[in-house]
């Protein structure tokens, strides 16, 4: 029996047991679709997080006061148990490093903003003009603490704040009171919404000197550094550590976090999660494989007389084994392809429903899903097929 005839004959068999075949194909397809959709979700989440992280800046390094003994736990730093503060002078030193394109010192606090008979509590950032390019923020109008004018009492309002205080009038040029000081609005941030748990629409930004004066401190909360290129990130980190160690009397009491390190950590975690989810989905493929085995065993039993007949008209055991085998291949193949298409359709629906989520199944997952479906289907058929091939012709023929 030729291969083409084996495939054609078994294909006819698959088609003639329509309901049975459809059910197995569906079971197989759901398994493959689960792999395709779940990995798309996992990988989509990974890409989403990476995009979000990338959107907060490029080649970004964050310098915080305090020393983390191990790279993973900078809890002490966050809680502010610092032996020595970061100062504006430190920030300026870092700004002169050859690997650094620009820097922005940062202070954070809260104060009451009042203008046009309105009053509210706002989050206040103190920084310089480079904060905008470093953090990839955009201005809707006006300018931002132009270079060399840090000493001017300028303020930039978040989009929502500007809208709340000056709903009908131009915000630029308006005078506002923040805490005890008076500022002139020089710019309004473009609405960006929340990014990494920080809503830039509800903040105001003032020059760092004013912020330090207002909060009565000489220390900095952070220094944001943008390295000149991706390759400069690691040298910049070393240079920063060395520079500040020198200026802090030989004590290494700061922590430098690179955006890269955070990114790759998230990347690893989410990639592992995607793998885990794919593994869980693959279990449903194994279940489908057992279903194929059961159905093929029933088929062997049902077609006993037919197998006897085939032997009587000269089929060899391997002909019969191949026929059942080919049948399982058709079923698994159809299930795998249908499942792949179903999964792709599901991913399309996901992308339409959640435009922010890039729900594309990774190529490896699609290929693995299809392969696992084919392999389980084929492995599941080995035993029933050999049962069929081993049937005793005389006994098989006498069965009605």
């Amino acid at each position, binding site marked *: *029996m*030729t291969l083409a*005839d084996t495939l054609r*004959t078994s294909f*006819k*068999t698959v088609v*003639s*047991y329509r309901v049975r075949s459809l059910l197995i194909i569906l079971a197989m397809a759901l398994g493959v679709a689960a792999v395709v959709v779940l990995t798309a979700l996992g990988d989509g989440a990974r890409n989403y997080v990476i995009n979000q992280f990338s959107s907060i800046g490029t080649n970004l390094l964050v310098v915080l006061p305090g020393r983390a003994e191990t790279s993973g736990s900078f809890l002490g730093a966050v809680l502010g148990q610092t032996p020595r503060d970061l100062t504006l002078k430190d920030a300026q030193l870092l700004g002169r490093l050859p690997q650094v394109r620009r820097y922005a010192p940062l202070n954070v606090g809260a104060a009451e903003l009042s203008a046009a008979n309105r009053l509210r509590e706002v989050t206040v950032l103190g920084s310089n003009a480079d904060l905008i390019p470093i953090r990839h923020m955009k201005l809707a109008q006006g300018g931002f603490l132009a270079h060399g004018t840090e000493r001017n009492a300028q303020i930039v309002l978040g989009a929502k704040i500007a809208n709340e205080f000056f709903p009908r009038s131009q915000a630029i040029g308006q005078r506002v009171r923040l805490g005890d000081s008076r500022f002139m609005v020089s710019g309004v941030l473009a609405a960006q919404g929340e990014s990494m748990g920080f809503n830039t629409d509800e903040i105001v930004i003032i020059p760092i000197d004013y912020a330090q004066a207002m909060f009565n401190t000489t220390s900095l909360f952070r220094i944001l550094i943008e390295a000149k290129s991706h390759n400069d990130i690691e040298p910049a980190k070393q240079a920063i550590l060395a520079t500040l160690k020198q200026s802090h009397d030989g004590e290494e009491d700061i922590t430098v976090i690179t955006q890269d390190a955070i990114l790759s950590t998230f990347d690893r975690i989410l990639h592992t999660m995607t793998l885990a989810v794919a593994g869980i989905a693959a279990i449903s493929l194994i279940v489908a494989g057992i279903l194929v085995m059961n159905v093929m065993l029933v088929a062997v039993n049902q077609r006993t*007389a*037919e197998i*006897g*007949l*085939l*032997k*009587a*008209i*000269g*089929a*060899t*055991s*391997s*002909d019969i084994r191949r026929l059942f085998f080919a049948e399982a291949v058709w079923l698994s193949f159809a299930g795998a392809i249908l499942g792949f298409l179903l999964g792709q359709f599901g991913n399309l629906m996901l992308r339409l429903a959640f435009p922010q989520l890039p729900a594309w199944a990774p190529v490896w997952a699609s290929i693995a899903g299809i392969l696992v479906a084919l392999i389980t289907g084929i492995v599941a058929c080995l035993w029933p097929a050999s049962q069929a091939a081993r049937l005793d*012709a*005389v006994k098989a*023929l006498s069965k*009605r």
Partner: protein
Amino acid sequence: MIRLSAITRTFHMGDQTVYALNGINLHIASGEYVSIMGPSGSGKSTLLNIIGLLDQPDSGRYELDGRLITDLSETEQAQIRREKIGFVFQSFHLIPRLTAAENIELPLILNGMPQEQRQIRVNDALQAFELKQRASHRPAELSGGQRQRVAIARATIMQPSVILADEPTGNLDHQIGAEVMALLENLHHTGTTLIVVTHDRELGARAHRQIAMRDGKILTDQADDAG
């Protein structure tokens, strides 16, 4: 040419050993028309199955066309079944999901014949057995006589040298049965060896050589002068 020497076939029922065939010696020349008769359990079907290579004897020698069969591998035996032997069964054994034409085509597919040649052969067979109108019907849509004609067409499509028929008219009424027998006898007239197993005396009497069996042994072996 079929030559059986001291063929024994036993079955085990519980701790009892039953001789289905007990030392059968039989020689059937090419082109003979033989009937094998006997009550049920006499071993006549077992004999037919052994001649048709569906069953293996426990001991004894079997030669078919000068070739010792008993030592052949399973695959070689399948090839001999395919090329030299045609089976006709009481219950037709057609594959229900295949059409008449596809059922007839099966042995050719198993033999690996290219599709165009198969088409020609199947068409000829459909013509010869007056099944042209029924070519694309499934067995369920055919009468008993038509089904057996399909089965005979399938048994003869490879132009075998031996046709083995096990109660070929058992499921048919008298008249249709006679038509089917006429078809089989026609094959015999073209030189094919025809062996019919039956418990119907009238049917058995049509053969030129009649073998009667009982308890796994050949009781009588008579040949008509006409044979």
